[in-house]
């Protein structure tokens, strides 16, 4: 038997996923689509936030959604708002990966979308490991889940570009220390955008909508610089 030798690799374990994520990013950039990967625990408020967001923005922006799930319950809810929505059947898988998203993209007309919302599987651990090629990872935490979540799930909160703290209408009845929660997130992820909201009462949502409008505008401007309209 020949002696063993070491071969240097020095690549991310998820480099196959990351390569596909790069292709998705390029397609979205070309089309000028601003896309978010929405992650939360089950019941954190992903679908409620999507419905609120669609209702607020659909007159100004062209929205679409893809939903990683096993049943079309959420897809049907989102479809009632009259925007294109595609189910990515995850077959019970605990997360979306770039390949699943790429498979769904041809079913959408990217030239007719300003804002694409990718609703990930309800889970605070697994989705954090997979880059989906979107512009922003948006994590929703909610007050009833407790203020210790950034300390228990550092990987998820580390990947967040935007953090929404949902169900702030429960702050009156929960021992939830917003500062403690926020400090945990900021230490893990400097510069994270933070929005305390309530999808039930509508509190704080205007700031989130404004943030989205600004991002969509910036993305469009970038795309038209890269490929000026003739």
């Amino acid at each position: 038997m020949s002696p063993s030798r070491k071969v240097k690799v020095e690549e991310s374990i998820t480099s196959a996923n990351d390569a596909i994520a790069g292709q998705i990013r390029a397609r979205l950039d070309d089309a000028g689509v601003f896309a978010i990967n929405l992650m939360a625990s089950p019941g954190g408020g992903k679908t409620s936030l999507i419905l609120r967001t669609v209702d607020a923005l659909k007159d100004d922006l062209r929205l679409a959604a893809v939903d990683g799930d096993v049943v079309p319950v959420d897809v049907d809810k989102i479809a009632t708002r009259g925007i294109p929505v595609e189910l990515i059947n995850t077959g019970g898988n605990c997360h979306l990966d770039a390949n699943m998203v790429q498979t769904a993209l041809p079913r959408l007309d990217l030239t007719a979308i300003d804002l694409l919302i990718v609703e990930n599987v309800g889970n605070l651990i697994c989705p954090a490991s997979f880059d989906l090629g979107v512009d922003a990872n948006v994590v929703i935490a909610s007050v009833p889940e407790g203020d210790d979540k950034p300390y228990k799930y550092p990987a998820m909160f580390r990947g967040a570009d935007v953090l929404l703290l949902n169900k702030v209408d429960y702050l009156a009845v929960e021992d939830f220390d917003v500062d403690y929660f926020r400090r945990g997130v900021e230490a893990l992820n400097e510069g994270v955008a933070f929005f305390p909201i309530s999808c039930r009462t509508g509190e704080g949502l205007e700031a989130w909508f404004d943030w989205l409008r600004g991002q969509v505008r910036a993305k469009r401007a970038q795309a038209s610089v890269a490929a000026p309209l003739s």
Partner: protein
Amino acid sequence: MHELGITEQLLELTLRHAEEAGAERVTRLNLVIGEFSSVVDESIQFYWEMMAEDTLAAGAELNFTRVPGRFHCAGCDTDFGLAEFEGCCPACGGVEVSVADGKQFQLESIEVEGSGVHVPQPES
């Protein structure tokens, strides 16, 4: 459970590098994983044994180097671990805290046996 998807990618990455190196067999994988990457070693090991079967990497040992999660306090220049992190620096109570280490999620190297001559396989 995301370890299944991770392990698939790990195998793909390993086999690509093994074939490029003209290896006949992969004996060991050296992985460096920081505490901020949420994977369970035993779970990767479990999937690995199933998936690597019938490949060049069958029976390869997985060697995990775990890097502890560390924070740094810009206020007093202290480093401390994830377990000591309660929202502020345990030494000075400051909140200018950021991640210093533990982000790794890499296949650093593989150990292989074989001639080292890369023989391109004819397209089948």
